[in-house]
């Protein structure tokens, strides 16, 4: 399946126009970017891939991932993933209403204490909730139910990711919620994989942008009477970053294609693992090639590198996914190792 070029062009133009350096910086200081979010919802991208019957704007998962890739490419400071393929997906698949405003999601940390009581009220707290403070509803999946909780009922403790994006702690005390039984295939494991897939798409875009920025910066910056890109030691950074950009984007697209066909645990796990490692290497290479300029707020490199540092640990860091893939392939035995690599989830026993 390929994504309609119109989606790519529209999203690229939209983010390109709105996510200027100043706008991304301002979003960080203000804890959100309402104008960017509004323009994003006007295009219908906010609900892309959610069925029209449920109040979504239709389209495929791959369409949604392409929009996320471009959101990553432009460092769009909005909860595009939370509202769409994560929180929106939870609500829509459970038959719960999509709100007017933003729906965000509790990614699920080891410290979360939130419980849904039999009377449909929720008590406890969830951490690292993206844009919690600006959301209308919080979607959670736990204990066999999906709940849509009004954020106005929460005590919000504002916190930030390494990228300066909101990652808030929300605490509830007997808050009323819309609660339904989770349908088959909708559980915390499924959310973790979808979350990982969303991060992989965002990261693929961000690494590509960072790699391009580094090629242009090193061609403009002169030392010893020539552009620093003429030095082989610098060229090495350019090549390594470009490889990681290619690897991450390929991983994201291949995992997206598998996920839209069905079971894609292997592809998503392998993609997140590759992309986490690619992010580590590429941020190192791109920062090094930028010298001190890359360490400033004024120059945009950090809009991408800090997001990558934050995304690489969200929905599973390198060790978690290495373990997952390792166990999956070890279970195949030696004869099944290569078939797993070529055939992915479909070949796993």
């Amino acid at each position, binding site marked *: 399946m390929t994504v309609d070029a119109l989606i790519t062009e529209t999203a690229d133009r939209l983010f390109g126009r709105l996510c200027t350096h100043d706008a991304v910086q301002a979003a960080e200081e203000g804890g959100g970017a309402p104008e960017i979010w509004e323009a994003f919802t006007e295009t219908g991208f906010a609900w892309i891939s959610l069925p029209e019957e449920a109040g979504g704007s239709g389209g495929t998962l791959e369409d949604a991932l392409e929009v996320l890739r471009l959101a990553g490419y432009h460092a769009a400071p909005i909860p595009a993933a939370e509202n769409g393929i994560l929180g929106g997906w939870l609500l829509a698949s459970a038959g719960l209403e999509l709100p007017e405003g933003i729906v965000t999601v509790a990614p699920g940390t080891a410290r979360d204490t939130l419980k849904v009581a039999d009377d449909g009220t929720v008590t406890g707290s969830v951490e690292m909730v993206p844009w919690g403070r600006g959301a209308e509803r919080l979607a959670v999946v736990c204990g066999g139910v999906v709940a849509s909780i009004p954020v106005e009922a929460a005590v919000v403790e504002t916190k930030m990711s390494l990228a300066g994006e909101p990652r808030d702690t929300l605490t509830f005390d007997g808050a009323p919620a819309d609660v339904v039984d989770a349908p088959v295939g909708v559980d915390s494991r499924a959310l973790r994989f979808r979350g990982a897939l969303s991060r992989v798409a965002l990261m693929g875009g961000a690494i590509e942008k960072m790699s391009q920025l580094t*090629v242009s910066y090193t*061609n403009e910056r002169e030392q010893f009477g020539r552009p620093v*890109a003429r030095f*082989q030691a610098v*060229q*090495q950074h*350019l*090549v*390594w970053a*470009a*490889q990681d950009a*290619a*690897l991450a*984007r*390929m*991983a994201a*697209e*291949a995992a997206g*294609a598998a996920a839209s066909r069905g079971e894609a645990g*292997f*592809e998503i*796990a*392998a*993609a997140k*693992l*590759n992309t986490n*490692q690619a992010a580590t290497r590429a941020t190192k290479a791109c920062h090094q090639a930028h010298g001190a300029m890359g360490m400033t707020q004024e120059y945009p490199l950090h809009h991408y590198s800090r997001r990558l540092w934050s995304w690489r640990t969200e929905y599973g860091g*390198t*060790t978690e*996914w*290495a*373990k*997952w*893939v*390792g*166990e*999956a*392939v*070890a279970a195949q*035995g*030696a*004869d099944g*190792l*290569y*078939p*797993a*690599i*070529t055939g*992915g989830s479909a070949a796993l026993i």
Partner: protein
Amino acid sequence: MRFTPTELTDDELALQSDVRDFLAAELPPGSYMPGLGMSAASDRAFSKKMADRGWVGMSLPKEWGGHDRTAVDRFVVVEEMLRWGAPVAYHWVADRQTGNIINKFGSDEQKTRFLPKICAGELGFSIGMSEPDSGSDLASVTTRAERDQGGWIVNGTKIWTSNAHQNDWFICLLRTQPLESGGNKREGLSQFLIDIHDTPGLELGPIPFLNGEHHFNEVSFTDVFVPDENVVGVPGMGWNQNTTEMAYERGGPDRWLSVFSTVEQLLREAEGTAMGERTIELLGELAARWWGIRNLSLSVARLIDSGHAPSIESSLVKEMATRFELETIEKLVELVDTELSLESESLFEQLLSQCVLTGPGNTIRGGTIEILRSVASKGLQGLPV
């Protein structure tokens, strides 16, 4: 630069399954010593069997004994052979590159003479590019061919010629016009087809590998006569033809499967035992990386089939993939943390020993990673390569 994701079609998957069946029947695990990817053993009978299946010279035209198959079909066959550690060395170079060069630039007479034999798995080629004073700076080769009645007289020396002692012919890059001072090194070079074992004045000798194995050779020419009909393409255009040849060398499964048979054996020997956490994690990292790199490499093959010459893409993949191979070897050594020996009781340890000893060549052969980086970086910056 854009790597478009692609997947195997049903026909390609059927081919993959044929190759797997063939290998399971011909080389059941435990019945042979697996090779390290393209550094596999040379076995004429095995090459012949593959050729009988139509798996050698696949992408060459039917007219010349080939099969008119795609680069992706060849990719499918090659990746299975290499991950199995099958003995593909005899037809390796002829299949990967020399056949293509002859098909692309050779005369009809050369095509008749060489291609059917290559496709039959009956003609092994080596590569005669490097010289004592010309490695990375390949265009500086000085082995010269001078005009003579009906042909050329060749003098000079080629080195590092892999498997020349086991193959039949080699394709040599020679200087046919003297390099004038300030002249363009890339002009005046020509490609010659030369019989390694039946050419008066040609001397072949081993250059023992660091572990004592016979892999490298030195080939010296003293007034060797090569007839005109053995010059490939247009005399003087050898550099461009040779560059085309290099494109076939880069970015394929041979650049990321050298360590696969070793890792597979690790898993085989661990079966039935509880694997440690570090082993599991390393296995996960490797499988994921193979999955990622394979997707990139397959997309390069698809690009070739759609008529592109993805030289930047294939340099990027090859540079990344061969570094990954070396990192893998290092991580395996750290994981097992034991005294390695080629005579170990464990086949895995034997293979890992061989990886340690031969691994450094992976990032050198076919153009060093430093040279690949400079090719790729020019491409990234939009400069002429």
